[in-house]
Structure formats: structure tokens, C-alpha cells
């Protein structure tokens, strides 16, 4: 027996190759450039240029692509309009994420100067004093971004596992690198790692069982064997269920959501912003392709499961977010609720959902990156007057609208977009997602989704009221400080412009999204 080696078309892989290449050059930069400030500059430029170039190339490939797309590496990878749309979205999120990574206030970024030493030790203080910087964050972020972009092209269950790890492993490390509250950050990294590795092991076992049933790991082969076999063997059903567990974990859906709040809270805020937007988008893309290409024949069996998960996710995310007192945790539970809204669209098993999901994730991701950029700007002041950790307790945000009107206005815009208020991108996103479900006759699900959205508006509006209508206690003048770093401002600007544009003039982008609603098997 011999294994035929696949013929790889390198052209369609260029956006991913640019990002991977930049990450590898970044590792060499770590080795060869000694001077910390210089290294930092080179890494920043490299990361921003690579993600920007990847986004432009993805657009160009969309423009020159003839037909629907093609398989580009045997049965393992495909490049079609759906995956190109996702790649452009993910490259944009990565670009904005890298901008947040690179931002510094008073010469300090959000990351630890030396990850290998214990938090609070003299070694760490010394490293901070000598201006060390853990610039490996840029290559790590690029590796994760490349993995996410590849994740949207995969059409083979085992390759999906490998790429899932490529995107997850750098994120596990990035989560543990916060400069302040580092014990919490490391604890979040351990939790994320153990639960993430657990979920991907479960996914792999499921994929192996499905391989046993269908003798194929490619989506096309699995779909063919599901279509051919009339009986539903327990091995197939168990395998599919276990595979869904792995992907729903990455999406942060109930009951596999437990990691989300801890990781969002513990991770450095730039990392939270990047992974909240991009990981969820990549997971949604991969889940859509798996469901619609490989498992379409099982739609009747899978739909009830997705219904249950979607309802539980929306309700739990919304209800628990109401009682949160920490901004980052509140946004984490809000992201869980959004995973539920996304699943509402996916349960329809119709082409409309393939147009709705990328648009929804673009709207959600922009608002998320913007909101966390705002979070990174509201800081505590330590008693000796130095700038401290982020002020994430809700109470510390009281009266922010008076002290930093633009910042608070941007945050209000992102919150309204989360809530799905008309004239924001979030409204259009929810509208197209729910309509896809309505067209498939899933109105009970949409009813729950609309009720959950209404309830969720409560805690978004509460924060807006807190920022604009609640007077700040006088001691906050000293203890809470609003900083003005360039990177987060740029991210906020892009996110706010995108949120408004997509909300007011959505038709050009919706038109593109509809063109993207085709999957090449």
C-alpha cells in the first residue's frame, strides 16, 4: 500500500503563507536582534504588515476567483468564496489585535516583561526596570491568526484537529502573559489549556469513530457514506456527537462555556480582544463547513441537539451576564450569548445561514475588539501615583462619560451593537441570522433569541447609564485614570466606523456575504 501525496496549489494559500512566514521571520528576529526596543519595533511592523497584506491578498483573490472555488490540497483543503470571506475577516481582526498588542502606555504594554519568572519576584521587577519586553507575543499571535485562517479552509476531520491545535497552542501561552494580576492570568492559561486540550481530545476520538464508520476522513467521503448508509449506527452518531463537543467548546457554547469568563478576565486585554473576536469567528466558520458539507445528511438528527444547545447558550449567557460586576466578565457572558445567536442561524441548515454567519461575526467581532480596546484604556492608579491594572469593576466606570466623552461614546456604540439596536451593525447581523432560522421554520428558537436579546439589552444599557448618568464619587479623580494610547484609539475608530457603516449601509457587504454563501465540497 502506498499513500499518494496530494498536489498542492500554493496560490490560494498565499494569505495564510504570508502570516505563517511573518511568524517564522519573527522567531528569527527574536534570535538575531539583541536590542529590546529595536526588536519590538521590527516585530510590530512585521506583524502589522503581514496581517494587512494577508487581508489585501484575500480581497484580490476574491476579485480574480473564477467560479465557486476549488480543492487546493487533495481532499484536505478548499479555497472558495466562503473561506476567502472568512480569511479577510480574520486578517482584519488579527490586524486590529496586533495594533492592541503593540500599544503601550507610559512605556509599558499589557504583557509581562519576563514570562519565565514568578510574578512579584525581584527578577521580574529587575526585568521591568531594564525595559525587557516579551516580544514573542507577536509571532505567537501570528501563528494563531494563520491557524484560524487555515481553519476556515479545512475539509478533512483529522486536518481539522491538527489546525485546531495550531490555532489553540499559541493562545494558551498568550493568555498567561499579563503584566498585572499575573497569578490570575496564569491560572486562566492553565484552565484554558486543560479544558481546551480535553475538548480537542474528545473531538479527535469522535473523528476516529466517524473514520471507522465511513472509512474516510474527508468531508466529501463522510457525506457520501452517510448518504449511502440507511441505518444510523451508534458508532457514527457517537462520533458525530463527540466531534461537535470539540467545536462547540471553541465557540464557547453551553455546556462547554465554563472556560470563557475566567479566560477573558485573566488574559491580557489585547489577547482577550483578539481571541474573543477571531477564535469565535474561526470556530463558527469551521463548524458551518463541517455541518453543511460532511454532516448534512444527519441534519434531522443534529438539529434537536443544536436547538437545545442554542437555547441553553442564549439563556445562560444572558441571565448570568446580568449579575456580573466586572466589565470583562460581563463581556465574556455576553459573548456566550452571542454564540447562541450564531447557532440559531446554523440550525437552519440552509444557504442563507452561510451568508448570515460571516456578516454576524464581522459585526460582533468589530464591536468586541472596540469594546476591549476601551477596557484597556480605563486604568487604576496605585496609591503611589503610578499607572496600575485596568479598572474593570463596574463601579469604577461611573461618570466615565463626563471625564472621557469620546471613549464612553464609543463604548456605548459597541454596547448598543451587542444589544442589536437598529442603525448598528449588530442589528443587521441579528436580523439576517434570525431570518435564516425563520425561513427554515424555526420560529420558537427565534422567539427565545429575541427575548434573550431584549433581556440582554438590560445589562448593556445599565453600563451606558452608569457611564453617562451616574455621577462619579470624588475619590475616582485620583484612583481611576483614562489613558490615551494610539493603538487602541485606532482600533476603536475602525471598529466604530465599521459598526456604524454596516448598520446604516449594510447592502454592499450583505451582497458580498450572499456571494460567499457557497461551499465547495
Amino acid at each position: 500500500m502506498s499513500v499518494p501525496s496530494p498536489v498542492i496549489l500554493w496560490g490560494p494559500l498565499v494569505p495564510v503563507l504570508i502570516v505563517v512566514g511573518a511568524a517564522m521571520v519573527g522567531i528569527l528576529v527574536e534570535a538575531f536582534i539583541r536590542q529590546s526596543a529595536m526588536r519590538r519595533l521590527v516585530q510590530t511592523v512585521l506583524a502589522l504588515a503581514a496581517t494587512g497584506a494577508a487581508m489585501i491578498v484575500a480581497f484580490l483573490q476574491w476579485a480574480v476567483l473564477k467560479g465557486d472555488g476549488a480543492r487546493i490540497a487533495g481532499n484536505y483543503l478548499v479555497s472558495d468564496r466562503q473561506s476567502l470571506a472568512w480569511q479577510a475577516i480574520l486578517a482584519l481582526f488579527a490586524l486590529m489585535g496586533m495594533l492592541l498588542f503593540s500599544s503601550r502606555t507610559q512605556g509599558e504594554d499589557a504583557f509581562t516583561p519576563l514570562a519565565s519568572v514568578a510574578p512579584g519576584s525581584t527578577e521580574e521587577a529587575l526585568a521591568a526596570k531594564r525595559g525587557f519586553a516579551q516580544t514573542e507575543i507577536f509571532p505567537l499571535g501570528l501563528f494563531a491568526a494563520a491557524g484560524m485562517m487555515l481553519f476556515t479552509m479545512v475539509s478533512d476531520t483529522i486536518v481539522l484537529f491538527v489546525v485546531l491545535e495550531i490555532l489553540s497552542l499559541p493562545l494558551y501561552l498568550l493568555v498567561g502573559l499579563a503584566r498585572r494580576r499575573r497569578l490570575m492570568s496564569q491560572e486562566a492559561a492553565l484552565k484554558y489549556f486543560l479544558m481546551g486540550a480535553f475538548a480537542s481530545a474528545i473531538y479527535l476520538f469522535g473523528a476516529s469513530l466517524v473514520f471507522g464508520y465511513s472509512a474516510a476522513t474527508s468531508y466529501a467521503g463522510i457525506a457520501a457514506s452517510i448518504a449511502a448508509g440507511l441505518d444510523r449506527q451508534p458508532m457514527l452518531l457517537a462520533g458525530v456527537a463527540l466531534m461537535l463537543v470539540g467545536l462547540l467548546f471553541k465557540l464557547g457554547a453551553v455546556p462547554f462555556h465554563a472556560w470563557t469568563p475566567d479566560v477573558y478576565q485573566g488574559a491580557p486585554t489585547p489577547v482577550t480582544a483578539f481571541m474573543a473576536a477571531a477564535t469565535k469567528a474561526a470556530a463558527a466558520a469551521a463548524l458551518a463547513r463541517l455541518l453543511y458539507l460532511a454532516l448534512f445528511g444527519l441534519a434531522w438528527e443534529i438539529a434537536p441537539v443544536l436547538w437545545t444547545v442554542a437555547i441553553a447558550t442564549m439563556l445562560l449567557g444572558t441571565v448570568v451576564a446580568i449579575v456580573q460586576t466586572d466589565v470583562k466578565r460581563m463581556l465574556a457572558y455576553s459573548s456566550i450569548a452571542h454564540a447562541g445567536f450564531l447557532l440559531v442561524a446554523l440550525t437552519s441548515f440552509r444557504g442563507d445561514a452561510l451568508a448570515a454567519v460571516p456578516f454576524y461575526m464581522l459585526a460582533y467581532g468589530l464591536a468586541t475588539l472596540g469594546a476591549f480596546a476601551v477596557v484597556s484604556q480605563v486604568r487604576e492608579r496605585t496609591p503611589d501615583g503610578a499607572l496600575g491594572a485596568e479598572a474593570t469593576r463596574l463601579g469604577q466606570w461611573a461618570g466615565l462619560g463626563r471625564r472621557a466623552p469620546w471613549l464612553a461614546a464609543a463604548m456605548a456604540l459597541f454596547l448598543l451593537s451587542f444589544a442589536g439596536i437598529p442603525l448598528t451593525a449588530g442589528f443587521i447581523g441579528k436580523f439576517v441570522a434570525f431570518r435564516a432560522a425563520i425561513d427554515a421554520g424555526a420560529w420558537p428558537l427565534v422567539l427565545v433569541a429575541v427575548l434573550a436579546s431584549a433581556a440582554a439589552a438590560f445589562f448593556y444599557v445599565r453600563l451606558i447609564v452608569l457611564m453617562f448618568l451616574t455621577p462619579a464619587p470624588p475619590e475616582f479623580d485620583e484612583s481611576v485614570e483614562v489613558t490615551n494610547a494610539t493603538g487602541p484609539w485606532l482600533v476603536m475608530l475602525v471598529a466604530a466606523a465599521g459598526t456604524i457603516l454596516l448598520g446604516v449601509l449594510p447592502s454592499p457587504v450583505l451582497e458580498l456575504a450572499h456571494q460567499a454563501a457557497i461551499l465547495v465540497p
Partner: protein
Amino acid sequence: MNPMNYVILATVLFSVGATAVLLRRNAIIAFMGIELMLNASNLLLVTFARVNGAIAGQVDAFAVLVVAAAEVVVGLAIIIALSRSRQNISLDEPSEMKG
């Protein structure tokens, strides 16, 4: 020999691994449980490669081995960093985060 025996063995190994992750409170032991789960999947892949006559399954097992090795590097790095700052790696330690 009936190949179904290997499937049963793999399922038992997977369950033992999953139980270790869920019940053991030492981070290293929990991590070993995950490795056991991955290797149970490897056994399944190789078994089904034989049963189905699809050699791709054996190649896939190698891919999984490489991924598992990379995962060990990252996992142990995180566990060592945590053990340096907390002096223990129990998953039962009072948590910094609540809610």
C-alpha cells in the same frame, strides 16, 4: 482476532483518561489523562485503518503524535510557570476568579 476488541480497548482507555481529567486534582495527572485520550484515538485510527483497508488512518496517527508532542511542550511550560509562582499545581487551590 476480532478488531472490535481494539475498539473496546480504545474506548476503555479514553474513558480512563477522561475520568483522570475530571477527577484528579493534580495538573500533571490531569494532563496525563488527556494524553491517554489522544493515544486511545490513535489506537482507534490504526485499528480502523486495518479494518477499512485505508492506510490514511495510520498516517493520521503520526500527525496526532506530533500534535500531542507539541501540546506537551506548551502544557508543561504553563504548568511549570504556575508551579513557580504558586509552589503547587493543585487544581483545587482557592481560585482567583469567581462568578
